[in-house]
Protein backbone atom coordinates (compact mmCIF):
# COMPACT_ATOMS: atom_id res chain seq x y z
CA UNK A 1 0.00 0.00 0.00
CA UNK A 2 1.44 3.29 -1.02
CA UNK A 3 -1.45 5.30 0.40
CA UNK A 4 -0.37 7.90 2.85
CA UNK A 5 -2.92 7.00 5.48
CA UNK A 6 -0.93 8.73 8.21
CA UNK A 7 -2.60 12.04 7.52
CA UNK A 8 -6.10 11.69 8.84
CA UNK A 9 -8.96 13.94 9.86
CA UNK A 10 -11.42 13.44 12.68
CA UNK A 11 -15.13 13.68 12.04
CA UNK A 12 -18.34 12.79 13.83
CA UNK A 13 -21.08 10.40 12.73
CA UNK A 14 -24.34 10.45 14.70
CA UNK A 15 -22.41 11.78 17.70
CA UNK A 16 -19.58 9.21 17.57
CA UNK A 17 -16.03 10.31 16.72
CA UNK A 18 -14.23 8.64 13.79
CA UNK A 19 -11.07 9.16 11.76
CA UNK A 20 -10.57 8.99 8.02
CA UNK A 21 -7.75 9.45 5.54
CA UNK A 22 -7.49 12.97 4.14
CA UNK A 23 -9.20 13.09 0.76
CA UNK A 24 -11.59 10.17 1.40
CA UNK A 25 -15.18 10.67 0.41
CA UNK A 26 -17.66 10.72 3.27
CA UNK A 27 -19.18 7.54 1.78
CA UNK A 28 -15.88 5.65 1.89
CA UNK A 29 -15.18 6.98 5.38
CA UNK A 30 -18.56 5.73 6.62
CA UNK A 31 -18.01 2.25 5.19
CA UNK A 32 -14.48 2.13 6.61
CA UNK A 33 -15.98 3.00 10.00
CA UNK A 34 -18.22 -0.06 9.66
CA UNK A 35 -21.35 2.03 9.12
CA UNK A 36 -23.42 0.14 6.56
CA UNK A 37 -26.78 1.62 7.54
CA UNK A 38 -26.19 4.91 5.79
CA UNK A 39 -29.84 5.45 5.02
CA UNK A 40 -33.07 3.75 5.93
CA UNK A 41 -35.67 2.66 3.40
CA UNK A 42 -39.39 3.24 3.86
CA UNK A 43 -39.78 -0.21 5.44
CA UNK A 44 -36.85 0.37 7.77
CA UNK A 45 -34.35 -1.69 5.79
CA UNK A 46 -30.78 -0.40 5.80
CA UNK A 47 -29.33 1.06 2.61
CA UNK A 48 -25.77 1.91 1.68
CA UNK A 49 -23.89 3.35 -1.32
CA UNK A 50 -24.60 1.58 -4.61
CA UNK A 51 -23.20 3.60 -7.51
CA UNK A 52 -20.34 5.43 -5.79
CA UNK A 53 -20.61 8.27 -8.33
CA UNK A 54 -23.51 10.51 -7.41
CA UNK A 55 -26.23 8.79 -9.42
CA UNK A 56 -28.27 6.64 -7.04
CA UNK A 57 -28.64 8.92 -3.99
CA UNK A 58 -28.52 5.87 -1.69
CA UNK A 59 -25.70 7.45 0.35
CA UNK A 60 -27.48 10.69 1.16
CA UNK A 61 -26.73 12.05 4.62
CA UNK A 62 -26.87 15.34 6.48
CA UNK A 63 -23.46 17.04 6.55
CA UNK A 64 -22.88 19.99 8.87
CA UNK A 65 -26.62 20.59 9.00
CA UNK A 66 -27.20 20.47 5.24
CA UNK A 67 -29.56 17.62 4.40
CA UNK A 68 -29.56 15.32 1.36
CA UNK A 69 -25.84 15.51 0.60
CA UNK A 70 -24.47 12.68 -1.50
CA UNK A 71 -21.77 11.24 0.73
CA UNK A 72 -19.91 9.84 -2.29
CA UNK A 73 -19.37 13.33 -3.75
CA UNK A 74 -18.20 15.12 -0.61
CA UNK A 75 -14.63 14.79 0.70
CA UNK A 76 -14.49 14.26 4.45
CA UNK A 77 -13.09 17.24 6.35
CA UNK A 78 -11.70 17.91 9.82
CA UNK A 79 -14.49 18.41 12.33
CA UNK A 80 -17.25 17.46 9.88
CA UNK A 81 -20.54 16.47 11.49
CA UNK A 82 -22.39 13.72 9.63
CA UNK A 83 -25.87 12.48 10.43
CA UNK A 84 -27.17 9.33 8.82
CA UNK A 85 -30.87 9.11 8.15
CA UNK A 86 -32.18 6.57 10.59
CA UNK A 87 -35.88 6.19 10.00
CA UNK A 88 -36.98 9.75 10.74
CA UNK A 89 -37.71 10.12 7.05
CA UNK A 90 -35.95 13.47 7.48
Amino acid sequence: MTDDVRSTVSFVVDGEPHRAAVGSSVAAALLNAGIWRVRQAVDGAPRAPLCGMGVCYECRVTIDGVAHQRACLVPVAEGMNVRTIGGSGE
Partner: protein
Amino acid sequence: MTAALELLDADLAVVGAGPAGIAAAACAAESGARAVVVDESPRVGGQIWRPRLGHPPRGTARRWIERLERSGAVVRIGASVIDAYRDDRGAFVLRVEEQGMPVALRASQLLLATGARERFLPFPGWTLPGVVGIGGAQALLKAGMDVRGKRVVIAGSGPLLLPVAASLRGAGAQVAFVAEQASPRRVVSFALGLWRRPAALVDAVRYRAGFAGAPYRTGWWVREARGEGVVREVVLTDGRHSRVVPCDLLCTGYGLVPNLELARLLGCAIEGGVVGVDEAQRTSVAGVWCAGEPTGIGGVDLALLEGQVAGLCAAGRPDEARRLFPPRARLRRMAASMERTFALRDELRALATPQTIVCRCEDVPMGAFDAAWSPRQAKLYTRAGMGPCQGRVCGPALAHLYGWPADVVRAPIEPARLSGLHRSPEGSDANAGSGESPAAPLAKGPHFG
Protein backbone atom coordinates in the same frame (compact mmCIF):
# COMPACT_ATOMS: atom_id res chain seq x y z
CA MET B 1 -34.90 37.93 -2.29
CA THR B 2 -33.50 39.62 -5.37
CA ALA B 3 -29.74 39.22 -4.96
CA ALA B 4 -28.23 38.30 -8.33
CA LEU B 5 -26.54 34.96 -8.30
CA GLU B 6 -22.99 34.50 -9.54
CA LEU B 7 -22.96 34.59 -13.33
CA LEU B 8 -20.14 33.17 -15.40
CA ASP B 9 -19.85 33.97 -19.10
CA ALA B 10 -18.18 31.70 -21.62
CA ASP B 11 -17.96 30.97 -25.31
CA LEU B 12 -18.23 27.25 -24.61
CA ALA B 13 -19.71 25.64 -21.52
CA VAL B 14 -18.65 22.01 -21.09
CA VAL B 15 -20.68 19.74 -18.83
CA GLY B 16 -18.57 16.89 -17.48
CA ALA B 17 -14.84 16.78 -16.74
CA GLY B 18 -14.12 13.24 -17.85
CA PRO B 19 -11.88 12.47 -20.85
CA ALA B 20 -14.35 13.86 -23.43
CA GLY B 21 -14.99 17.08 -21.51
CA ILE B 22 -11.32 17.61 -20.66
CA ALA B 23 -10.24 17.10 -24.28
CA ALA B 24 -13.00 19.36 -25.60
CA ALA B 25 -12.35 22.16 -23.11
CA ALA B 26 -8.58 22.00 -23.58
CA CYS B 27 -8.82 22.07 -27.39
CA ALA B 28 -11.34 24.92 -27.36
CA ALA B 29 -9.39 26.98 -24.83
CA GLU B 30 -6.11 26.45 -26.70
CA SER B 31 -7.90 27.90 -29.73
CA GLY B 32 -8.67 31.06 -27.80
CA ALA B 33 -12.24 30.27 -26.74
CA ARG B 34 -13.34 31.07 -23.20
CA ALA B 35 -14.20 27.55 -22.02
CA VAL B 36 -15.75 26.71 -18.67
CA VAL B 37 -16.04 23.08 -17.51
CA VAL B 38 -18.38 22.01 -14.73
CA ASP B 39 -18.43 18.63 -12.98
CA GLU B 40 -20.24 17.52 -9.87
CA SER B 41 -17.38 15.38 -8.58
CA PRO B 42 -14.78 16.79 -6.21
CA ARG B 43 -11.99 16.17 -8.75
CA VAL B 44 -11.59 16.19 -12.51
CA GLY B 45 -11.03 13.03 -14.53
CA GLY B 46 -14.49 11.49 -14.66
CA GLN B 47 -15.02 7.97 -13.44
CA ILE B 48 -12.16 6.53 -15.44
CA TRP B 49 -9.38 9.02 -14.72
CA ARG B 50 -10.22 10.06 -11.20
CA PRO B 51 -7.11 9.03 -9.28
CA ARG B 52 -7.18 6.65 -6.37
CA LEU B 53 -6.58 8.37 -3.04
CA GLY B 54 -2.82 8.64 -2.55
CA HIS B 55 -2.07 7.70 -6.18
CA PRO B 56 -1.64 10.76 -8.40
CA PRO B 57 -2.84 10.43 -12.00
CA ARG B 58 -0.36 8.95 -14.44
CA GLY B 59 0.13 8.49 -18.17
CA THR B 60 -2.55 9.73 -20.54
CA ALA B 61 -4.79 10.91 -17.69
CA ARG B 62 -2.04 13.07 -16.24
CA ARG B 63 -1.03 14.50 -19.61
CA TRP B 64 -4.60 15.56 -20.40
CA ILE B 65 -5.35 16.92 -16.93
CA GLU B 66 -2.16 19.01 -17.10
CA ARG B 67 -3.01 20.12 -20.63
CA LEU B 68 -6.44 21.24 -19.38
CA GLU B 69 -4.78 23.25 -16.60
CA ARG B 70 -2.40 24.94 -19.07
CA SER B 71 -5.15 25.60 -21.61
CA GLY B 72 -6.72 28.41 -19.62
CA ALA B 73 -10.10 26.70 -19.40
CA VAL B 74 -11.95 27.49 -16.18
CA VAL B 75 -12.79 24.37 -14.16
CA ARG B 76 -15.62 24.35 -11.62
CA ILE B 77 -15.86 21.15 -9.60
CA GLY B 78 -18.50 20.12 -7.09
CA ALA B 79 -20.95 21.79 -9.47
CA SER B 80 -24.20 20.04 -10.50
CA VAL B 81 -26.21 21.26 -13.46
CA ILE B 82 -29.88 21.38 -12.51
CA ASP B 83 -31.37 23.19 -15.52
CA ALA B 84 -30.45 24.40 -19.00
CA TYR B 85 -32.32 26.72 -21.33
CA ARG B 86 -31.89 29.51 -23.85
CA ASP B 87 -32.33 33.06 -22.66
CA ASP B 88 -34.13 35.69 -24.73
CA ARG B 89 -30.87 36.60 -26.52
CA GLY B 90 -30.37 33.02 -27.64
CA ALA B 91 -27.51 32.23 -25.25
CA PHE B 92 -27.54 29.00 -23.30
CA VAL B 93 -27.88 29.31 -19.55
CA LEU B 94 -26.89 26.48 -17.22
CA ARG B 95 -28.22 26.69 -13.70
CA VAL B 96 -25.68 25.09 -11.45
CA GLU B 97 -25.51 24.25 -7.77
CA GLU B 98 -21.96 24.55 -6.56
CA GLN B 99 -21.48 23.30 -3.02
CA GLY B 100 -25.07 24.27 -2.31
CA MET B 101 -24.77 27.77 -3.83
CA PRO B 102 -26.59 28.70 -7.03
CA VAL B 103 -24.39 29.74 -9.97
CA ALA B 104 -25.40 30.51 -13.54
CA LEU B 105 -23.21 29.82 -16.53
CA ARG B 106 -24.07 31.63 -19.77
CA ALA B 107 -22.47 30.52 -23.02
CA SER B 108 -23.05 30.80 -26.73
CA GLN B 109 -22.27 27.10 -27.19
CA LEU B 110 -22.80 24.07 -25.01
CA LEU B 111 -20.89 20.79 -25.00
CA LEU B 112 -22.42 17.78 -23.30
CA ALA B 113 -19.84 15.31 -21.98
CA THR B 114 -22.04 13.86 -19.29
CA GLY B 115 -20.62 10.34 -19.39
CA ALA B 116 -22.41 7.17 -18.41
CA ARG B 117 -23.66 5.31 -15.39
CA GLU B 118 -24.01 1.62 -14.63
CA ARG B 119 -27.07 -0.38 -15.58
CA PHE B 120 -28.42 -2.26 -12.59
CA LEU B 121 -30.95 -5.07 -12.88
CA PRO B 122 -33.01 -5.99 -9.81
CA PHE B 123 -32.63 -9.41 -8.17
CA PRO B 124 -33.55 -10.59 -4.67
CA GLY B 125 -31.25 -8.99 -2.12
CA TRP B 126 -29.77 -6.31 -4.39
CA THR B 127 -30.77 -3.55 -1.98
CA LEU B 128 -28.63 -5.01 0.82
CA PRO B 129 -25.74 -2.87 2.02
CA GLY B 130 -22.54 -4.32 0.57
CA VAL B 131 -24.09 -4.77 -2.87
CA VAL B 132 -22.42 -2.11 -4.99
CA GLY B 133 -21.88 -1.40 -8.65
CA ILE B 134 -18.82 -2.75 -10.41
CA GLY B 135 -17.80 0.74 -11.43
CA GLY B 136 -19.27 1.73 -8.06
CA ALA B 137 -16.73 -0.43 -6.24
CA GLN B 138 -13.97 1.12 -8.31
CA ALA B 139 -15.24 4.62 -7.50
CA LEU B 140 -15.50 3.88 -3.77
CA LEU B 141 -12.04 2.32 -3.80
CA LYS B 142 -10.61 5.41 -5.46
CA ALA B 143 -12.37 7.53 -2.84
CA GLY B 144 -10.64 5.65 -0.03
CA MET B 145 -12.77 2.56 0.68
CA ASP B 146 -10.64 -0.02 2.48
CA VAL B 147 -11.12 -3.49 0.98
CA ARG B 148 -8.18 -5.22 2.64
CA GLY B 149 -9.16 -8.78 3.56
CA LYS B 150 -12.70 -8.40 2.21
CA ARG B 151 -14.15 -11.32 0.25
CA VAL B 152 -15.50 -9.95 -3.02
CA VAL B 153 -17.75 -11.45 -5.67
CA ILE B 154 -18.05 -9.66 -9.01
CA ALA B 155 -21.08 -10.65 -11.07
CA GLY B 156 -22.41 -8.76 -14.04
CA SER B 157 -21.32 -8.01 -17.56
CA GLY B 158 -18.91 -6.03 -19.64
CA PRO B 159 -15.28 -5.09 -19.99
CA LEU B 160 -15.19 -3.51 -16.52
CA LEU B 161 -15.26 -6.84 -14.65
CA LEU B 162 -11.62 -7.76 -15.20
CA PRO B 163 -9.95 -4.41 -14.48
CA VAL B 164 -12.09 -3.90 -11.38
CA ALA B 165 -11.28 -7.42 -10.15
CA ALA B 166 -7.60 -6.64 -10.64
CA SER B 167 -7.72 -3.31 -8.84
CA LEU B 168 -9.71 -4.70 -5.88
CA ARG B 169 -7.23 -7.52 -5.60
CA GLY B 170 -4.37 -5.05 -5.84
CA ALA B 171 -5.92 -3.14 -2.93
CA GLY B 172 -5.92 -6.25 -0.76
CA ALA B 173 -9.35 -7.81 -1.38
CA GLN B 174 -9.83 -11.54 -1.87
CA VAL B 175 -11.65 -11.90 -5.16
CA ALA B 176 -13.71 -15.06 -4.59
CA PHE B 177 -15.56 -15.29 -7.90
CA VAL B 178 -15.93 -13.33 -11.12
CA ALA B 179 -19.10 -14.16 -13.07
CA GLU B 180 -19.66 -12.77 -16.58
CA GLN B 181 -23.20 -13.40 -17.79
CA ALA B 182 -22.25 -13.42 -21.49
CA SER B 183 -21.81 -16.81 -23.07
CA PRO B 184 -18.30 -18.28 -23.28
CA ARG B 185 -18.61 -18.41 -27.09
CA ARG B 186 -19.22 -14.67 -27.36
CA VAL B 187 -16.50 -13.70 -24.91
CA VAL B 188 -13.93 -15.92 -26.63
CA SER B 189 -14.68 -14.49 -30.05
CA PHE B 190 -14.40 -11.00 -28.58
CA ALA B 191 -11.07 -11.88 -26.94
CA LEU B 192 -9.79 -13.24 -30.26
CA GLY B 193 -10.77 -9.94 -31.84
CA LEU B 194 -8.33 -8.32 -29.44
CA TRP B 195 -5.47 -9.86 -31.44
CA ARG B 196 -6.16 -7.14 -33.92
CA ARG B 197 -5.54 -4.61 -31.18
CA PRO B 198 -2.36 -5.62 -29.35
CA ALA B 199 -2.61 -2.97 -26.63
CA ALA B 200 -6.03 -4.27 -25.60
CA LEU B 201 -4.70 -7.81 -25.52
CA VAL B 202 -1.87 -6.82 -23.20
CA ASP B 203 -4.45 -5.15 -20.95
CA ALA B 204 -6.60 -8.30 -20.91
CA VAL B 205 -3.65 -10.53 -20.03
CA ARG B 206 -2.54 -8.16 -17.31
CA TYR B 207 -6.01 -8.04 -15.79
CA ARG B 208 -6.39 -11.81 -15.95
CA ALA B 209 -3.01 -12.20 -14.27
CA GLY B 210 -4.04 -9.62 -11.70
CA PHE B 211 -6.53 -12.00 -10.12
CA ALA B 212 -5.01 -15.35 -11.02
CA GLY B 213 -6.44 -18.00 -8.76
CA ALA B 214 -9.93 -16.51 -8.54
CA PRO B 215 -12.55 -18.39 -10.55
CA TYR B 216 -13.58 -16.48 -13.66
CA ARG B 217 -16.65 -17.94 -15.33
CA THR B 218 -18.50 -16.82 -18.41
CA GLY B 219 -22.17 -17.80 -18.69
CA TRP B 220 -22.68 -17.35 -14.92
CA TRP B 221 -24.74 -14.70 -13.15
CA VAL B 222 -25.99 -13.74 -9.70
CA ARG B 223 -29.48 -14.93 -8.73
CA GLU B 224 -29.70 -13.73 -5.15
CA ALA B 225 -27.79 -11.86 -2.43
CA ARG B 226 -28.44 -12.83 1.18
CA GLY B 227 -27.61 -11.35 4.57
CA GLU B 228 -29.03 -9.53 7.56
CA GLY B 229 -28.22 -5.84 7.39
CA VAL B 230 -25.29 -6.48 5.07
CA VAL B 231 -24.54 -8.99 2.31
CA ARG B 232 -23.10 -12.29 3.60
CA GLU B 233 -23.40 -14.65 0.64
CA VAL B 234 -24.56 -14.75 -2.95
CA VAL B 235 -26.15 -17.44 -5.08
CA LEU B 236 -24.56 -17.74 -8.52
CA THR B 237 -25.91 -19.84 -11.35
CA ASP B 238 -25.31 -20.87 -14.94
CA GLY B 239 -28.95 -21.83 -15.35
CA ARG B 240 -28.33 -25.50 -14.52
CA HIS B 241 -26.06 -25.46 -11.50
CA SER B 242 -25.83 -23.01 -8.65
CA ARG B 243 -23.19 -22.12 -6.13
CA VAL B 244 -23.41 -20.26 -2.84
CA VAL B 245 -20.37 -18.05 -2.30
CA PRO B 246 -19.77 -16.20 1.01
CA CYS B 247 -18.71 -12.59 0.57
CA ASP B 248 -18.48 -9.17 2.22
CA LEU B 249 -18.96 -7.20 -0.98
CA LEU B 250 -20.92 -8.05 -4.12
CA CYS B 251 -20.09 -5.93 -7.14
CA THR B 252 -22.78 -6.07 -9.81
CA GLY B 253 -23.73 -4.16 -12.93
CA TYR B 254 -24.78 -4.86 -16.50
CA GLY B 255 -22.83 -2.52 -18.68
CA LEU B 256 -23.15 1.23 -18.96
CA VAL B 257 -26.00 3.51 -19.98
CA PRO B 258 -25.34 7.04 -21.21
CA ASN B 259 -26.43 10.01 -19.08
CA LEU B 260 -28.93 11.68 -21.41
CA GLU B 261 -30.96 13.83 -19.03
CA LEU B 262 -29.40 17.13 -20.08
CA ALA B 263 -29.44 16.29 -23.79
CA ARG B 264 -33.10 15.35 -23.58
CA LEU B 265 -33.97 18.44 -21.55
CA LEU B 266 -32.41 20.55 -24.31
CA GLY B 267 -34.37 18.68 -26.96
CA CYS B 268 -31.41 16.97 -28.68
CA ALA B 269 -32.53 14.12 -30.96
CA ILE B 270 -31.93 10.70 -29.40
CA GLU B 271 -31.34 7.87 -31.85
CA GLY B 272 -31.22 4.29 -30.64
CA GLY B 273 -30.74 5.34 -27.04
CA VAL B 274 -27.84 7.71 -27.70
CA VAL B 275 -27.45 11.37 -28.65
CA GLY B 276 -27.40 11.69 -32.42
CA VAL B 277 -24.39 13.68 -33.69
CA ASP B 278 -22.93 14.59 -37.08
CA GLU B 279 -19.26 14.16 -38.02
CA ALA B 280 -18.34 17.33 -36.08
CA GLN B 281 -20.15 15.99 -32.94
CA ARG B 282 -22.98 18.50 -33.43
CA THR B 283 -26.35 17.48 -31.99
CA SER B 284 -29.69 18.25 -33.65
CA VAL B 285 -29.91 21.46 -31.57
CA ALA B 286 -27.85 24.31 -33.03
CA GLY B 287 -25.02 25.30 -30.69
CA VAL B 288 -25.14 22.07 -28.66
CA TRP B 289 -22.32 19.54 -29.10
CA CYS B 290 -21.94 16.12 -27.56
CA ALA B 291 -18.93 13.84 -27.01
CA GLY B 292 -18.08 10.64 -25.22
CA GLU B 293 -20.43 8.03 -23.77
CA PRO B 294 -23.71 9.92 -24.43
CA THR B 295 -23.17 9.39 -28.17
CA GLY B 296 -22.69 5.64 -27.59
CA ILE B 297 -20.74 3.65 -25.00
CA GLY B 298 -17.23 3.48 -26.44
CA GLY B 299 -14.66 3.91 -23.70
CA VAL B 300 -11.94 6.39 -22.91
CA ASP B 301 -10.00 6.38 -26.21
CA LEU B 302 -13.12 7.13 -28.23
CA ALA B 303 -14.26 9.75 -25.71
CA LEU B 304 -10.91 11.54 -26.08
CA LEU B 305 -11.19 11.62 -29.87
CA GLU B 306 -14.79 12.80 -29.82
CA GLY B 307 -13.95 15.45 -27.24
CA GLN B 308 -11.09 16.77 -29.37
CA VAL B 309 -13.24 16.83 -32.50
CA ALA B 310 -16.05 18.66 -30.68
CA GLY B 311 -13.70 21.14 -29.00
CA LEU B 312 -11.87 21.96 -32.24
CA CYS B 313 -15.07 22.27 -34.27
CA ALA B 314 -16.81 24.38 -31.63
CA ALA B 315 -13.78 26.70 -31.66
CA GLY B 316 -13.93 27.03 -35.45
CA ARG B 317 -11.03 24.71 -36.35
CA PRO B 318 -12.82 21.87 -38.20
CA ASP B 319 -9.85 21.26 -40.52
CA GLU B 320 -7.70 20.15 -37.60
CA ALA B 321 -10.45 17.85 -36.39
CA ARG B 322 -10.60 15.99 -39.68
CA ARG B 323 -7.49 13.89 -39.08
CA LEU B 324 -9.21 12.40 -36.05
CA PHE B 325 -12.12 11.02 -38.06
CA PRO B 326 -10.48 7.73 -39.20
CA PRO B 327 -9.33 6.59 -35.73
CA ARG B 328 -12.71 7.63 -34.34
CA ALA B 329 -14.47 5.45 -36.92
CA ARG B 330 -12.23 2.51 -36.00
CA LEU B 331 -13.00 2.81 -32.30
CA ARG B 332 -16.72 3.11 -33.00
CA ARG B 333 -16.60 -0.23 -34.81
CA MET B 334 -14.83 -1.81 -31.81
CA ALA B 335 -17.50 -0.41 -29.50
CA ALA B 336 -20.22 -2.01 -31.61
CA SER B 337 -18.51 -5.41 -31.36
CA MET B 338 -18.21 -4.95 -27.59
CA GLU B 339 -21.94 -4.32 -27.37
CA ARG B 340 -22.72 -7.56 -29.25
CA THR B 341 -20.36 -9.55 -27.03
CA PHE B 342 -21.95 -8.45 -23.79
CA ALA B 343 -25.60 -8.58 -24.91
CA LEU B 344 -27.72 -9.42 -21.88
CA ARG B 345 -29.26 -12.88 -21.60
CA ASP B 346 -33.02 -13.29 -21.17
CA GLU B 347 -32.72 -15.07 -17.81
CA LEU B 348 -31.72 -11.75 -16.21
CA ARG B 349 -35.22 -10.39 -16.82
CA ALA B 350 -36.72 -13.09 -14.61
CA LEU B 351 -34.59 -12.68 -11.48
CA ALA B 352 -36.78 -10.19 -9.60
CA THR B 353 -39.67 -11.73 -7.64
CA PRO B 354 -42.88 -9.73 -7.03
CA GLN B 355 -41.38 -8.63 -3.69
CA THR B 356 -38.03 -7.47 -5.11
CA ILE B 357 -37.63 -3.68 -4.89
CA VAL B 358 -37.14 -2.11 -8.32
CA CYS B 359 -37.32 1.63 -7.52
CA ARG B 360 -34.97 1.97 -4.57
CA CYS B 361 -35.89 5.59 -3.79
CA GLU B 362 -39.61 4.96 -3.42
CA ASP B 363 -39.46 1.26 -2.46
CA VAL B 364 -41.61 0.08 -5.36
CA PRO B 365 -41.53 -3.71 -5.78
CA MET B 366 -41.59 -5.61 -9.05
CA GLY B 367 -45.12 -6.85 -8.36
CA ALA B 368 -46.47 -3.29 -8.46
CA PHE B 369 -45.81 -2.92 -12.20
CA ASP B 370 -47.89 -3.95 -15.16
CA ALA B 371 -45.94 -4.65 -18.34
CA ALA B 372 -48.78 -3.10 -20.37
CA TRP B 373 -48.23 0.32 -18.78
CA SER B 374 -46.28 3.23 -20.18
CA PRO B 375 -43.47 4.56 -18.00
CA ARG B 376 -45.67 7.58 -17.29
CA GLN B 377 -48.41 5.32 -15.94
CA ALA B 378 -45.87 3.45 -13.82
CA LYS B 379 -44.75 6.77 -12.38
CA LEU B 380 -48.25 8.02 -11.63
CA TYR B 381 -49.54 4.75 -10.19
CA THR B 382 -46.49 3.68 -8.16
CA ARG B 383 -44.17 6.73 -7.76
CA ALA B 384 -41.39 4.72 -9.42
CA GLY B 385 -38.74 7.11 -10.66
CA MET B 386 -40.03 10.05 -8.60
CA GLY B 387 -37.47 9.90 -5.79
CA PRO B 388 -34.17 11.72 -5.49
CA CYS B 389 -32.41 9.76 -8.26
CA GLN B 390 -35.26 10.67 -10.62
CA GLY B 391 -35.34 7.23 -12.22
CA ARG B 392 -31.64 7.10 -13.02
CA VAL B 393 -31.44 3.61 -11.51
CA CYS B 394 -34.91 2.08 -12.03
CA GLY B 395 -35.45 3.75 -15.42
CA PRO B 396 -32.84 1.73 -17.34
CA ALA B 397 -33.85 -1.40 -15.38
CA LEU B 398 -37.51 -1.02 -16.35
CA ALA B 399 -36.48 -0.16 -19.90
CA HIS B 400 -34.65 -3.47 -20.05
CA LEU B 401 -37.32 -5.51 -18.27
CA TYR B 402 -40.36 -4.13 -20.10
CA GLY B 403 -38.92 -2.31 -23.10
CA TRP B 404 -40.31 0.97 -21.78
CA PRO B 405 -38.94 4.15 -23.36
CA ALA B 406 -37.49 6.83 -21.11
CA ASP B 407 -40.02 9.28 -19.68
CA VAL B 408 -39.93 13.03 -20.40
CA VAL B 409 -37.13 14.94 -18.66
CA ARG B 410 -38.01 18.11 -16.79
CA ALA B 411 -36.01 20.62 -14.80
CA PRO B 412 -34.64 20.44 -12.23
CA ILE B 413 -32.80 17.36 -13.48
CA GLU B 414 -31.39 16.79 -9.98
CA PRO B 415 -32.88 17.53 -6.58
CA ALA B 416 -32.18 21.22 -6.04
CA ARG B 417 -32.59 23.90 -3.44
CA LEU B 418 -35.49 26.33 -3.76
CA SER B 419 -33.12 29.17 -2.89
CA GLY B 420 -31.25 28.50 -6.13
CA LEU B 421 -34.23 27.69 -8.30
CA HIS B 422 -36.20 30.86 -7.78
CA ARG B 423 -33.40 33.25 -8.65
CA SER B 424 -32.62 34.04 -12.24
CA PRO B 425 -29.26 35.18 -13.63
CA GLU B 426 -30.90 38.51 -14.50
CA GLY B 427 -31.35 39.18 -10.82
CA SER B 428 -35.12 39.00 -10.75
CA ASP B 429 -37.25 36.40 -9.08
CA ALA B 430 -38.90 35.49 -12.36
CA ASN B 431 -38.99 31.82 -13.06
CA ALA B 432 -36.52 31.44 -15.88
CA GLY B 433 -36.90 27.70 -16.33
CA SER B 434 -36.71 25.98 -19.69
CA GLY B 435 -39.13 27.37 -22.22
CA GLU B 436 -41.05 24.20 -22.95
CA SER B 437 -40.63 22.66 -19.53
CA PRO B 438 -41.06 25.09 -16.69
CA ALA B 439 -39.24 24.22 -13.51
CA ALA B 440 -41.07 21.24 -12.08
CA PRO B 441 -41.81 20.79 -8.41
CA LEU B 442 -38.86 19.47 -6.47
CA ALA B 443 -38.17 15.78 -6.52
CA LYS B 444 -39.65 15.56 -3.09
CA GLY B 445 -42.07 12.76 -2.44
CA PRO B 446 -43.42 11.53 0.88
CA HIS B 447 -40.43 9.22 1.16
CA PHE B 448 -37.75 11.72 0.27
CA GLY B 449 -35.05 11.36 2.84
